[in-house]
């Protein structure tokens, strides 16, 4: 294992992050505040509680997840797409490193940045609602696992993408709808049974449910299944990345 290389990639990427941190933080904080105003205040005036949790607090885990998913994917996909786009990827390919080191470096940095922003969102939300966290350790575990898994997905997207439009396609077209339909703003038990069944095919349901459990001690699906779902997703992404580097797909002619 070339730890020096991992550290170098991580540092280089974090450098980039800190250069642009202010602008990376402003937009998620602003949009989260808007969600609070619209959903928390307007809808919360009509829906008092969900499962005995005040609606304003109920949507916090979903909002944090929404930002975390978007950030992990965007950071990681951009992080690897950029060297591919400008050509500096030649250096990664010619260095004495394996895909494991490249992935740890890029995905680690992308996940770190996403986590920083998620924590800022969480802190922002305490300005609007009172929050208690039932299982803080599990909460952190869910955050980290989610950030890493989706940064891996972002990495795959970054390798796959042939232009900037494709880079934004999956986050916009797939991830945002899945989060909105994944129970970010409601409990899926509020849906008719048929739609509940459909929802169980949405992987984000398990993430949000598990994450919400770590706050309020209650969940749409058992927390063990949530964890298993994340583990499955993580493994699938790792397998895909292993295959990408083995075959040189989209990076090596």
């Amino acid at each position, binding site marked *: 294992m*070339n730890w*020096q*290389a991992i*550290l*170098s*990639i991580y*540092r*280089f990427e974090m*450098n*980039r992050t800190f*250069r642009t941190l202010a602008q990376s933080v402003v937009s998620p904080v602003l949009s989260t505040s808007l969600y609070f105003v619209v959903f928390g205040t307007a809808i919360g005036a009509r829906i008092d509680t969900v499962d005995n949790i005040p609606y304003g607090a109920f949507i916090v885990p979903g909002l944090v997840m929404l930002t975390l998913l978007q950030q992990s994917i965007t950071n990681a996909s951009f992080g690897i797409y950029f*060297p591919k786009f*400008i*050509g*500096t990827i*030649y*250096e*990664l*390919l*010619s*260095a*004495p*490193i*394996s895909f494991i080191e490249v992935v740890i470096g890029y995905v680690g940095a992308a996940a770190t940045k996403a986590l920083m922003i998620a924590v800022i969102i969480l802190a922002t939300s305490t300005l609007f609602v009172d929050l208690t966290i039932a299982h803080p350790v599990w909460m952190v575990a869910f955050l980290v696992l989610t950030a890493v898994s989706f940064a891996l997905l972002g990495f795959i997207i970054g390798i796959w993408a042939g232009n900037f439009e494709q880079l934004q396609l999956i986050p916009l077209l797939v991830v945002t709808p899945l989060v909105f339909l994944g129970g970010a703003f409601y409990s899926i038990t509020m849906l008719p049974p048929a739609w509940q069944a459909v929802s169980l095919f949405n992987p984000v349901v398990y993430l949000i449910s598990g994450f919400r459990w770590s706050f309020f001690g209650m969940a749409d699906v058992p927390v063990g299944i949530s964890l298993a779902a994340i583990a499955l997703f993580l493994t699938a992404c790792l397998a895909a990345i292993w295959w990408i580097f083995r075959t*040189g797909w989209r990076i*090596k*002619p």
Partner: protein
Amino acid sequence: MSAIISIRDLAKTYGDGFTALKGVSLDIEEGEILALLGPNGAGKTTLISIICGLVTPSAGSVTVGGHDILTGYRAARAMIGLVPQEITIEPFEQVINTVRFSRGLFGKGSDEAHIERVLRALSLWDKRKSKNQALSGGMKRRVLIAKALSHEPRVLFLDEPTAGVDVTLRREMWELVRQLRSEGVTIILTTHYIEEAEEMADRIGVIDHGRLLLVEEKARLLHQLGRKELLLELTEPLPELPSSLAEFALQRSEDGLHLTYEFDAHAERTGMTRLLGAVAEAGLQLKDLTTRQSSLEDVFLKLVADGRDET
């Protein structure tokens, strides 16, 4: 001297079906400067890219320092520094940070003294805090060289290092390359400037259409293939060659005032004396007489032309 890089029957067919390398075998000696010459699209960059891990070979094998580039890629690549043909550089980062990054990527611990030495040698020390995007093209190319030297490679690939570099800097770069060689670094460079190969290289390889047409010590190459020309200037135009001169395969200029005789300068008999005798016998009056040694450039053009005739 022993081979530090061994290339065997290396072939590459790209995804679109184009075959860029057609079985190249070559041993590169430790400590030498090898210049690869070849027209655009000959396969020089493809060859280098395979050795450095940017392109997957279709067939054949390469070892660097005894390590196979596929099965022993870590050990093989750790020995190699690559300066790519295209200028590709992180635009928003500081010069010194991009150079440090390269060193780390190759698994070397930080060594600020070495980084400073490299940046100074490339006249980049004053620019170390600048962003890469604020540099001129020639400076960017030097940053790429600094990156490649940052991890103290034993083999350095320079893919057209002096394209877009001004004359003074080109001389400085040649100086640097010589100094690296004196430190034992093996250098493989591609170039379109034949004077560059003539000036720098110990050996010269000529590639065209994915084949290595020849690899030869520079001196011997010039010696072996050195053609000389004898140029005869006549006082009066010659409407056509007399048949007594037919055996010399002379070339007559349009105006009939010049005759060119080509001969091998190193042959036992150049045929010059006989020719001059025949010229006198034919009653031609000479105004001037010069000889010209063909340059490496002529040699190169001739090789490429011959290679194309065969295929």
